[in-house]
């Protein structure tokens, strides 16, 4: 038991760390690799949970997570990058030091919010809240569209793990739905990115390009 909880806390910490690091890397491929590792972590956590709670459905859920988030999504994204040779997404609004400060503020905020909301003193919960907020920050800070996509996926990882730890009932139907949702989302995102590339020649959701679309 205790061993299981410790593993869960470890997974939570790893997810949080990965979210943080995603904010700092430069290459797109690294970003996707980090996402891959994050998904693996979530799968491991689910397997752990299934063994402690003796529910086979969670095992299936873990396998599904592995399949969709660990294999399918990264493959799609890697292919996309190779096709359009968008290897770097360095552009961001805040410089690296400032981003680090904001991330620290976010983590503090998450730690202050979490106990009041959940009431539990488990170490994992504030970490996961921080992971969720970091993923949101990734979406806001980075100019590239691909970063937004990865940000949403990381966000989803964090939410899944958080709900699992908070004890939400993990039926197979739920996981299946989440998986389906991820798959569809990937398809839409890749279509969106393709259109962006075709139209603007780059993936920047930058003011210079998109703001021309507003009505004047």
């Amino acid at each position, binding site marked *: 038991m205790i061993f299981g909880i410790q593993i869960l806390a470890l997974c939570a910490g790893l997810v949080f760390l990965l979210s943080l690091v995603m904010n700092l890397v430069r290459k797109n491929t690294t970003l996707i690799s980090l996402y891959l590792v994050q998904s693996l972590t979530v799968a491991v956590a689910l397997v752990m949970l299934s063994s402690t709670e003796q529910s086979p459905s969670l095992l299936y859920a873990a396998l599904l997570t592995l399949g969709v988030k660990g294999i399918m999504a990264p493959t799609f994204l890697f292919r996309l990058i190779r096709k359009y040779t968008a290897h770097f997404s360095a552009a961001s*609004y805040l410089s690296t030091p400032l981003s680090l400060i904001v991330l620290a503020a976010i983590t503090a*905020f998450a730690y*202050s*919010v979490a106990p*009041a*909301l959940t009431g539990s003193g488990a170490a994992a919960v504030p970490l996961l809240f921080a992971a969720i*907020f970091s993923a*949101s*920050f990734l*979406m*806001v*800070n*980075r*100019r590239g*569209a691909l970063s*937004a996509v990865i940000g949403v996926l990381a966000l989803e990882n964090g939410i899944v793990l958080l709900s699992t730890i908070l004890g939400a009932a993990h039926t197979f139907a739920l996981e299946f739905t989440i998986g389906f949702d991820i798959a569809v989302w990937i398809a839409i995102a890749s279509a969106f990115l393709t259109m962006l590339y075709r139209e603007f020649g780059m993936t920047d*959701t*930058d*003011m210079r390009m*998109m*703001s*021309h*679309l*507003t009505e004047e």
Partner: protein
Amino acid sequence: MSTVLQYGFVVSLELYAFGALCSLLFSSRGREATASTFSHFFAACGALTGLVFALAVIFSGSVVDLHAGAIGLAQNVLTFHVDGLAAFFIATISTVALAASVYGIAYQKQFLGVYRLGHFGFFYNTFLAGMLAVIAADNGIMFLFAWEAMAVGSYFLVAFERHDSHAVSAGKLYILISQLGAAFLFAAFLLLFRATGSWDFDVLRAHAVILPAMLEHVILGLALIGFATKAGVIPLHIWLPEAHPAAPSHVSALMSGVMIKTAIFMMVRFFVEFFPGHASWGLVILVLGAVSALLGVLYALSEHDIKRLLAFHSVENIGIILLGLGAAIAFFAYGIPVAGYVALIAALYHTVNHALFKSLLFLSAGSVVHATGTRNMEEYGGLIKRMPWTAVFFLTGAVAISGLPPFNGFVSEWLTFQSLFTGIAALPLPAKSIFLLGAASLAFTGGLAAACFVKAFGATFLARPRSDVAVHAHESGWLMKLPMGFLAALTLLFGVGASFIAPAIGQVVLSLRGEGGAMPLVSPFAMINIRDFALLSMASVALVLIAAVLVTYIAIRVISRHSRTRIARTWDCGVSLTPRMEITATGFSRSIITIFRGLLRPSIQKTAEYHDASTRYFAKSRMVHLSMPNLYRTYLYDPAASLVERSALKTRRIQTGNLNIYLLYIFLTLAALLASALIS
């Protein structure tokens, strides 16, 4: 009798629904004549059923409550409550709907092949059913639903002639202002729900919940604005002179005659039944009525479009009804219920009278428009020889609306005057002066209305034709004459039979205040007694008048039996008279507009084209442009609209087009929500 009471209302609604359905089924282009005839026929049947049902309710003094079974989500929503007041309004609506539907069978034929009659029939029946549901609704949700159905249905009817840009823009203005009023109503009803915890009107009727005074005033204010918008009270009336002329004439009759009265019905419910005892609101309503009456008739005098003229007269008559209603509310609040009953009887009597003579006027105006193809009175003239029956019906309506005895307009104006006089005598000083203002406004309004209808009838029907279309006009068919004759007979009946009708309305009013009972039968020669201050016996007055006319006529025939009559030209001072030598409708009312120019602010623009531009001595042509600005648009609606636009433009700055900013908004909102959850 009891079967009528039990099923009459539902059967009526079903007939309307059937008419709507039939109309849609036959709405393909080949079968539109069938669709139109069927839809109007079933509407007429529905109206007849409604009328019988309503009369049964009034005469038996009973109250009909209907509950539809639970239909899924609409568990307690489909409830209807028909008491004396609702039955009175249903009777009014059904009478006018009956006449208008029969009229419409023949009238709509002119649109065959031009517009889609099948769709018209659908919206027509929806509109009628919506009005019935508004009157009978017993809870807030049903009421609001029916109110919107009524508004949307009538919008499609107003914008029916969609190739005419004026009709389309009139419809747009109408639905916009209607929705604005409805927004106020939604706010009022939502506040009521929050305060009382239920949508049912029974809760309000039983005064089960005492609301805090401030909240009650806010709700009444919102409700008053919402209902005043629908009723066409100044300054919320600007849709009325645009929408009523644009619709087909029998729809105009319905809108002007009964749709604006649904707002009056709800005002009676709110201010007399649900939240009585507010003298200040009564005085506010009275002032609104006085202003609307006077300004309405002044604007009507400046019009030369016959249907716009009639639409402004609706504003005037709503003002007269509000005079009576405001007086009633004030009397009930000051503790003089007997006077309050008289005032409320006056208001309700004028409601039904206006419904009758206004729809009569609109139907006959519709006949004229149908025959000549134009609404401009300056192109009419001499139609009394070509459309004699329409002329008689229009004259009846004109005499009735001017308040001349022995027709019905006189009786309701008499009753309104008496309630105002009682207020001047019996109420404390501030209310006294407002009642005096109301009496003065009513006195002037009566005279100005008569002037306006001399102009309308004279310019349209008398003298020589002013244009070709008037020369070639033809009388309407019997299907159009029959409903007009029916309404004309009713105006005379409601005038002469006042001693019978007034106690009936009095019964309705008494049951509203909780003192019910069956209808007393009064002899038509009895007198209406206002606390021994004034007595009126309309039948006797009518009798004396008819006897005097007969005596005079016989005497003249006897005296001049040896005289000969020669037909010759009007005295023309030696030149031949052309139609341009008659007085025009614009010229007729020019004196009054000049006298009231402070209120109306007319403007004159003169342009001239000269033969020689440098000397400018001999003019080739001159043009005079007389106009009256729409002051409400300039000072109320346009500033409000531009304020909304400017603030919207400023708010648009948050739309940068940058995806990251939008994500930041989401993120910040989430954080703020979490933080607020933390604080609470």
